[in-house]
């Protein structure tokens, strides 16, 4: 099968390309890129046996890689399955998803890793990589058989949404993983400092009377892990950094040569703890300006003030805003965007955490943390581009090249001969989030009913169209079989 993607704005960070042109895909691989000037050669090469995909006005980029998603299978199929999670990924423009080991049983033996790989091969819509468990049962007491997991094909080790409290064991884990050439992924949460947490600790948690997860609880663990990475020479990857202090620690460590990489989620880049106030924020004075002088921020009146999205649409204490790490402050958002811009943060990772209604339709402090994030990720991070805070090519790099570098593999690319993992998206299309129409089983999002800007039109994984939207009509399209 051959496809010719025509007239798109081609963005390929690996080739430093940003141009209008066509992409020819043949037998699952990129055959060639044509700039407008190459039209003559194109007509010569492309015969009649080709499906034309019109990408006029849209961006054509390598498919995205998500370093951090909870696919919930095996064990919690009422929340998500590998089939539904990878379909959500396809809708979000992701062609590779790293499955975190928060499953039951966890990825602590080659057997469960192979089960996930097999399910992904048979039922997955996009490519799935498996993150092995760091400790047996993710209990933080004894290392899992890391070499066995590496041999089974795991691409990193992590205890998922649990940070490893035992510092000595973390040291051994880093040392051992380094010998296997794989990164250890760590979530910044010092357990005692965040015990009983419901949301970010600060003025909003004080007003609402909710127990806090202070920024220091994240920073303390990141600092410890960086010290251990420095000691062991291992590759440490910080997942879902959410605080300004965390970004500073990572930046300083990288500057002195520590092998530390990091990712940030779309919601931590765009939403603050004021979302927990929901409609209570409507009568509040706006938060004090914390912007650094000289920072440009062009307001987009069509999507409302003070931030891009309207938190006051939610009721107070809406459990959809509960996520780990918690939504932080405006100041943190700015530091995260700065870190993403300057490369301190390598990748955008969704932290996709689908939950069922049972886990979310309850008291705030009892609700399971998590946001179903794959289907809104692109639109959220594009807001940085629309606000003039980030360059579109750099943003695409953080979704493609950045995560590939974290995994120490060659990035998704539109170079000839590369696997045809491609996303086509319209950065300017506005749409209203309707969580009830998510293909993910998790409808848990604080963004239901919000207007977002930027929409995936087509996702191709390995040369197969796994998602396609009808551009003329409603944003619904039948998923690829």
């Amino acid at each position, binding site marked *: 099968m051959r496809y010719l993607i025509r007239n798109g704005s081609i963005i390929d960070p690996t080739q430093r390309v940003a141009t209008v042109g066509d992409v020819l895909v043949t037998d699952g691989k990129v055959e060639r890129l044509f700039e407008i000037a190459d039209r003559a050669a194109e007509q010569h090469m492309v015969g009649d046996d080709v499906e034309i995909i019109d990408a006029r006005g849209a961006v054509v980029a390598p498919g995205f890689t998500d370093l951090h998603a909870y696919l919930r299978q095996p064990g919690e199929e009422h929340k998500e399955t590998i089939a539904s999670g990878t379909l959500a990924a396809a809708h979000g423009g992701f062609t590779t998803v790293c499955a975190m080991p928060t499953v039951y049983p966890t990825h602590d033996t080659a057997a469960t890793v192979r089960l996930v790989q097999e399910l992904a091969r048979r039922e997955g819509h996009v490519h799935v990589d498996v993150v092995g468990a760091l400790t047996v049962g993710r209990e933080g007491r004894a290392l899992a058989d890391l070499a066995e997991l590496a041999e089974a094909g795991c691409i990193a080790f992590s205890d998922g949404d649990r940070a490893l409290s035992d510092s000595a064991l973390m040291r051994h884990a880093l040392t051992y993983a380094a010998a296997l050439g794989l990164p250890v992924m760590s979530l910044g949460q010092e357990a005692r400092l965040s015990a009983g947490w*419901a949301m970010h600790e*600060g*003025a909003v*948690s*004080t*007003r*609402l*009377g*909710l*127990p806090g997860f202070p920024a220091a609880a994240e920073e303390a663990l990141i600092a410890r892990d960086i010290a251990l990475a420095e000691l062991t020479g291992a590759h440490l990857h910080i997942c879902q950094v959410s605080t300004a202090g965390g970004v500073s620690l990572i930046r300083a460590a990288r500057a002195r040569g520590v092998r530390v990489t990091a990712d940030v989620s779309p919601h931590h880049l765009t939403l603050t703890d004021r979302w927990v106030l929901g409609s*209570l924020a409507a*009568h*509040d004075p706006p*938060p*004090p300006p914390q912007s650094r002088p000289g920072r440009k921020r062009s307001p987009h009146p069509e999507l409302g003030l003070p931030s891009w999205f309207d938190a006051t649409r939610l*009721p*107070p*204490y809406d459990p959809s805003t509960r996520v780990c790490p918690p939504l932080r402050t405006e100041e943190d958002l700015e530091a995260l965007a700065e870190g993403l811009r300057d490369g301190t943060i390598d990748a955008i990772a969704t932290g996709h955490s689908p939950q069922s209604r*049972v886990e979310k*339709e*309850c*008291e*705030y*402090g*009892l609700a399971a943390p998590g946001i179903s994030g794959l289907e809104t990720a692109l639109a959220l991070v594009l807001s940085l581009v629309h606000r003039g805070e980030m360059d579109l090519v750099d943003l695409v790099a953080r979704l493609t090249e950045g995560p590939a570098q974290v995994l120490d593999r060659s990035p998704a690319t539109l170079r000839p001969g590369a696997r045809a993992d491609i996303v086509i998206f319209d950065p300017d299309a506005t749409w209203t989030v309707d969580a009830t129409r998510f293909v993910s089983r998790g409808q848990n999002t604080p963004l239901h009913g919000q207007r977002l800007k930027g929409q995936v039109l087509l996702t191709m994984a390995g040369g197969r169209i796994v998602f396609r939207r009808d551009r003329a009509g409603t944003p619904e399209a039948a998923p690829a079989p």
Partner: protein
Amino acid sequence: MAPSSTEHPRRRHAIDLDDFSSTEIEEILTTAESMKEVLSREIKQVPALRGRTIVNMFYEDSTRTRISFELAARALSANIVNFSARGSSVEKGESLVDTVRTLQALGADIVVIRHSQAGAPYLVARHFRGSVINAGDGRHAHPTQALLDLFTIRERLGQIHGVHVLILGDIIHSRVARSNLWGLTRMGARVTLCGPATLLGPPAYWTATWPEVRVSYHLDEVLSSADVVMALRLQKERQQAGLLPSLREYTRLYGLNPERLARLGERVLIMHPGPMNEGVEISPEAATAPNAVIEEQVTNGVAVRMALLYRLAG
């Protein structure tokens, strides 16, 4: 800015005082005066809420608040049913939302809820067609306690505007402190929060929401300017959690003891939302001093809750 009462001609829920205007609070306190008169009669009952069903939904132990609501409902001739988490469907794992739907199906008009989780009354309000009154949710809010405190201050001092209220003790864990912050600042009182730094947190956490509030860690520096001292209950678990060196040190620095009582003068009101830990945050001498109004607070609580029930359902 508080929404004015004209924007909300009829209040449906009372979850916190943050959405009460000063006018509305005044009206409730004035209604409460009439209710207090009703309670002084020989027949302590009026037919205002006859035929209405109120459910007391208590997920946390409480004696005074539950009984206070019960007496208030009866004095207004409403039917009131008590529901406590122990021995109910909650122990079988029924969710709060399911319980609320059940109470709705049973015909409840008003739910009064006490819950250990902050924000729970908002969840109830979303799934209930009637009115919800918050009788205390986690550390978040206890609006009827704040209203009865306002009533007591107004009754004893003649006004609330300009009065300096010192809230003393375990502020960070206190729903009483938070609701009083809304109520007192809206009525024009000056508020100082005082307690050990571990039970207060950084001042900016408070001033971001209540800019006019003063925060102090030193009781003896702020005591002399107070018109009202509101001591909060200190739970002994705070010491076990490492928030306090010892109860002895707490009592020495923040206890309302006879020496401090002497410095206060006779016009300064001593208040406590109860239950008291006598000998910890308040000495028996202070609790029974002529200017202590702790029992009056309890009496006024019934009148204020009658006024609120009447406003929601009358």
